[in-house]
């Protein structure tokens, strides 16, 4: 299917439903015992929080859903988590690692 080139910057908000495009690979790197993100000519080294967030980026859940889910898991206030996730995902969206 023809996928039109994105012409506008994707903006991450609580209501966006982020997803990693198929050519970005979140992989467990067994030889180094950690998770990595493979992208064209780039590697990203996510920490545990980032891995948790990215695993939930399925194009179905909104950022708010993800925050709520993790708020329970981490036992932390959802609004703080939301702000943190938005910042992280916006950065990744600008680098083409997540799409909306």
């Amino acid at each position, binding site marked *: 299917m023809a996928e039109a080139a994105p012409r506008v910057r994707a903006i991450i908000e609580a209501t966006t439903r982020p997803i990693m495009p198929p050519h970005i690979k979140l992989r467990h790197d067994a030889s180094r015992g950690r998770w990595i993100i493979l992208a064209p000519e780039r*590697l990203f080294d996510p920490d545990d*929080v980032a891995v948790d967030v990215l695993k939930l980026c399925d194009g179905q859940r909104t950022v708010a859903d993800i925050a709520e889910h993790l708020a329970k898991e981490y036992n932390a206030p959802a609004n703080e988590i939301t702000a943190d996730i938005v910042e992280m995902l916006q950065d990744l969206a600008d680098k083409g690692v997540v799409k909306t």
Partner: protein
Amino acid sequence: MNEHSPSHIKETVMPLGACEPSEEQKDGAEIADTTCARAPIGLLAELTHRCPLQCPYCSNPVELERANTELTTEEWQSVMRQAAELGILQIHLSGGEPTARRDVVDIIKAASECGLYTNLITAAVLLKREQLEKLKEAGLDHVQISIQDTDARPENADRIGGYKGGSAKKKVVAGWVRELGLPLTINAPIHRHNVDNVAGIINYAVELGADRVEIAHVQYYAWALMNRASLMPTREQFNESAKIVEKAREDLKGIIVIDSVVPDYYAKYPKPCMGGWGRGIINITPSGRVLPCHASESITGLDFDNIRDKPLAEIWLNGDAFQKYRGTDWMKEPCRTCPRHEIDFGGCRCQAFALTGDAANTDPACSLSPLHEQWAKVADVESHNASPEFVYRRPGGASRKPGMQKSPATSEA
């Protein structure tokens, strides 16, 4: 959550060749130590040196390897499996023109079956749509197409590449790449014959639907060194292009990623070539020679192993050529005691060798090298003189006229 680093994610640009260090690296932070220290992360597989184009800046050695010495399909497939075992994550299939080998599909299949991320670096003019479909089916992850100029200046593009109709064909293939839903990078080597069009090239990459564009100022080794007087932009032209890149990065944030490679003749410090010798990248030539960098054969006196004779892991860990300039122990002054020596690793060994006769010397690209001024002056003088005719890249070397014969350069490999 706040005790974690604010970004949660560390980014590493894979320095295939010579990218600018990231902001973090400039600040002196370790360069992806976790990934590079023991196992390599990237493999540049030069499947063949055959190529229908004849770019005068080609990074292949001036002595091109012949088709009858190329590794077989099975040998490349074994390389892929060994690479995965060694911990390599990304495979760059390059050349020459990798699709001049019909078995590129089988090689990619082997690579993706063992979980490797595959990137096809192509000039695109030989590709057919159905072949691209097969490549995708085989698991290809990413396509990088090189261009010489925009489609608005096809004569210029085709003159630089020495291939008639190349510019138009590339545009068609880029369209197929997007139609198939594969991610696309446009790579544009920059020199004095297109440096005036950097803004146009970035916009063209957006128009083609690329996710990423490389504004890659030519690095002056091999063919490019031979053609330096024809290719070197002036300092003013370079500065202007750098400003355009900076502005476009702001304007096109979230739309396209722009990577740039600067010509080190105009830089203050050298680039960490290959991210450090024997540190993260392996290059394998069409005949199976295993190199720390694609230009390293230019350093005489280094012994290179062949993948036909030894396992990849052994070559990586113990091979003479890899051990020789690995780490920092081999360094001389001023690098030895320089606080930047784990940031740029003393620059490029091949350039140090070519210009000083000793690869262990500081790369003259560094302003701290005693040869730097003299060397930077060469660029200044050459870039202001009229451009001599290109020496086009082709087997057998130095030819002043592009061979416009339509050699399809395909064969049963």
